[in-house]
């Protein structure tokens, strides 16, 4: 570990890695842009690109002139290890012109930095022990968060809550393993297993693992969002409802049955969750091969939905019977401005008058949010976590304390799975996998 020297910046970094530079904000013209540098040569590069500036005091914003660029920047220097990456860092806020940013980065490269790869700053933070792998993933999720739920979950994960759960579970597995090993190797020293106690410990580990796995479904909803598919007979107003919910004329609307022949998708935020709204072709015996394909796609879309909004037009007489109920279904009576028989099971909606739309929105929000189980303050896990935890759970399920040398094998494998999740023994392959989805500059 490197200590910050008393003169402000540390003299270098243990890793001795090279110094990287990248734009940390989105590309394209903007009011401001942030360019960040990290690595052992930051101090030297800073002195070179801004010879007049005084960087002796880290963690303070100051206005500096960038040499040869005719540009001023708000600069904050960070001294290792008290920085995001754990290395010496410099953050420069400049005007967000693509030209200014490009010139500044080129200036840094000329002074000895090299362009950062995707996620390289966070990767260094992991390498320097500032974050573990689970927290690094949370950084990526938080940067990409589009909804309140995604942001909340990513922040919780970044706080280390999930890491602590995983590390704690691993610790308990290792402790149980140590007890088993001691009972195997030191039987002649009178070390005996307390079967009941060890069984209780194992059961506790299994329960905690199961509880973590239980958050997977919620995790999927939060991360991947919810698919809401509108289905119904032709010309019942599916595309009109689709446009109304979106608030724009995305789908072509016409008074002819069979106008929508393909599946249309659009994203929107409902109740803090990402919702993919899907418009489909009307379900009927198709008149031509193209429409037939549209109907087939509509059925497939409905089958993959989290929530189905099933429309039945008011002018079509009695509604169709309810579906088989496997997918959550909102049953809606469309064109409710037309005279219609009362159907208690259907929510009357009219896109023409706007009647019932707010009630539909509310019902949708409740249905969508209801799909996220109460996490009780826990963090919902991702697909990667779920795969590792499922493998660990399979090992624990096979763990039979009556055969301690085999139980030890299972515990060892389960602990290894958890280690791989947190990155205790992270392999480069795993790091590559995790950091592949990062953007440059983070």
């Amino acid at each position, binding site marked *: 570990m490197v200590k910050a020297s008393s003169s402000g910046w540390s003299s270098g970094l243990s*890793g001795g890695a090279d110094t990287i530079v990248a734009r940390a904000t989105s590309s394209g013209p903007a009011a401001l842009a942030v360019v960040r540098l990290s690595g052992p040569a930051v101090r030297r590069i800073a002195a070179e690109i801004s010879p007049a500036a005084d960087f002796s005091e880290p963690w303070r914003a100051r206005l500096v002139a960038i040499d040869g660029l005719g540009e001023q920047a708000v600069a904050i220097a960070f001294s290792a290890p008290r920085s995001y990456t754990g290395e010496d860092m410099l953050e420069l806020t400049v005007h967000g012109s693509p030209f200014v940013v490009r010139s500044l980065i080129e200036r840094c490269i000329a002074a000895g930095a090299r362009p950062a790869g995707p996620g390289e700053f966070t990767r260094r933070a992991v390498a320097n022990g500032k974050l573990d792998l689970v927290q690094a993933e949370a950084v990526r999720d938080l940067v990409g968060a589009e909804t309140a739920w995604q942001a909340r979950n990513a922040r919780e994960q970044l706080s280390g809550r999930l890491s602590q759960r995983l590390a704690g579970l691993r610790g308990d597995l290792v402790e149980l393993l140590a007890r088993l*090993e001691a009972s*195997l*190797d030191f*039987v*002649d020293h009178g070390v005996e297993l307390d079967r009941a106690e060890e069984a209780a410990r194992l059961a506790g580990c299994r329960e905690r693992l199961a509880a973590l796995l239980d958050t997977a479904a919620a995790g999927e909803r939060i991360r991947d969002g919810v698919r809401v598919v509108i289905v119904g007979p032709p010309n019942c107003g599916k595309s009109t409802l689709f446009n109304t919910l979106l608030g724009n004329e995305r789908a072509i609307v016409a008074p002819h049955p069979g106008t929508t022949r393909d599946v249309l998708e659009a994203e929107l935020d409902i109740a803090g969750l990402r919702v993919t709204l899907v418009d489909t072709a009307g379900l009927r015996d198709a008149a031509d091969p193209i429409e037939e394909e549209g109907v087939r796609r509509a059925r497939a879309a409905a089958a993959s939905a989290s929530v189905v909004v099933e429309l039945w037009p008011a002018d079509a007489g009695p509604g169709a019977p309810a579906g088989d109920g496997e997918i959550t279904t909102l049953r809606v009576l469309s064109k409710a401005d037309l005279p219609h028989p009362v159907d208690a099971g259907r929510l009357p909606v009219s896109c023409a008058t706007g009647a019932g739309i707010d009630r539909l929105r509310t019902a949708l929000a409740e249905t969508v949010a209801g799909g996220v189980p109460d996490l009780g303050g826990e963090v919902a896990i991702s697909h990667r976590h779920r795969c590792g935890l499922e493998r660990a759970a399979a090992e624990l399920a096979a763990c039979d304390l009556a055969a301690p040398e085999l139980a030890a*094998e299972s515990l060892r494998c389960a602990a290894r799975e958890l280690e791989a999740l947190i990155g205790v023994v992270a*392999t*480069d*392959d795993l790091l590559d996998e995790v950091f592949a989805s990062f953007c440059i500059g983070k």
Partner: protein
Amino acid sequence: MAAAPRDLLVVGAGHAGVEAAAAAVRLGARVAVVTLSLDTVAQMPCNPAMGGIGKGHLMAELDALGGVQPWAADRAGLQFKVLNRSRGPAVWGPRAQCDKQRYTVIMRRLLQRLAGIDIIEGEVSGLLEAAGRVVGVRLADGRRLQARAVLLTTGTFLDGILHTGAERRPGGRFGERPSVGLGADLRARGLELRRFKTGTPPRLHRASIDVERLQPEPGDADPRPFSWRTRSVANRVLCWLAHTPEVVQSIIADNLHRSPLFSGQIQGVGPRYCPSIEDKVVRFPHHRQHTVFLEPEGLDSDSMYVNGLSTSLPADVQEQVVRAIPGFERARFLRYGYAVEYDVVAPLQVAPTLECRSLPGLSLAGQLLGTSGYEEAAALGFVAGVNAVLLGRGEAPFVPERERSYLGVLVDDLCSADHREPYRMLTSRAEHRLLLGVDSARERLMPTGARLGLVPESVFHVEQERWRRRREVRDELATRALNPDAPTRALVRRIAGVEPTAPTTWAGILRRQDVDAETVAAALPVLSGLTAEDRRAVLGELHYDGYLARHQREVERLARLRHLEIPVDLEPAEIPGLSREAADALRRHRPRTVADAERLPGVTPAAVAILIGRLGRPRDARRRPAGSMTEGEPCPES
């Protein structure tokens, strides 16, 4: 007779030295053993027992290779017992109480009878070096002894100090003076030495203990010998079990300041795995009692060893502690427990051949290399002795592999990690423990023993025939289907007491937790035709079936990586794409093969892939480059 040049000079005639000398001379080398006294050959200065869990595994392997310790332990054995019998076969640990006196006599006679060994009494005070090689030793009386190679096995004698309470006196063992000049000589030659500590319990007079009040501990009903050289063994003594009463805790707590371990008098690091009673009381205050085994030290000896009471407390405190144990109230002390502090050579300085990396011609083995125990010492002595001869002839050395033997685990652990306490073998140190049960030791290692010429061809042939038969039986049990027809079901119900539902095999039934495999095996003609040992081996493999396959795959993967040797002149920093951390680890540890590299911290799978790319792909590397012999490779004729 004009003296031919000596091939190997073994310094020390303890368990490591004797094993090394016996192996080397049987390989045809001219060997000399230098010992302080011929009376103390292969002494058992601590517990009067050989083997146990991990240690018994090492003995089984040593025996398969043709070592002598298991054979001598059978002959000196007084009580034989397999530990962990209620667990699976991988962790069964054969152990024997031994007659200490008899053990020394057997080993001394062996040394004297092996043609080609000179035994020299004297104290080695330094090494002789010529042209960067160690070429002999200097004795304290001024004599100089030359040899092609020198093996140091000086145990706990290097600047040894014995402690009992505040009393400290120089000594290697009770009643024996230490070796003082040699340590300074090694330091002067640049070797790093460090201070270790071990201890031993008091010895009590047999007649002074009321054993009627203790719990007798008999040997196994079917005592098994360690060695293929031994036809049968018998139990001739009992041991006894006792527990320390709660008052012992307060006796020790009140006197802790008088223990050299806690007063700061002892600086050396002791083995966590073999703690003194004062350690146990301090570290496990919630344990109200501690187990104590009373073990006879010999048939003709009145001395009883108090296993579990290792201590360096002052004599009067030892008396209080011992006499507090029910049955020990009138215990008479023949000797008080003591701790010994001694210098060891930091083991990272030796290569897997046990030759010193910086001083060619010098090898190290036994407690001097930081291990603890007679079995670890003998195992290392064997490896060092064999390699000193092979290297002297310019032949490929014998480097046991950690995925195939505890011997490999021992050597690899010592040479690749920095040990700060005496190293004791434990089954948990072996990643592939399930493959390394004592019953498979011969199948794993006897081919190497036979190739070295340390196991007679005739014995090897008989063994091979047995392994073939075992495989046949195993295949038969695993492949012949048992259909759930009425007569078969009745048969299974009668023999195994369970009801087969789906078509299965006898292997499937024997694996079931609710089936007593031994009972079933006795009733099945195909199994009952085997010897008890072979039957155990077959059942053992069935027991672990699926797990073994997983380990076998990993072992085969490692075997492929092991064929990829890393050239000594490879500069890791110059390999493109290799992380700094990986390059550092490679430079520091200088692993011999990619399989060894893979275990180093910092060497990730990606780094291994880069390394493999640099060295050539495994499947193109069928032919092993010159430089090493391991199991499965023919040994050059000696």
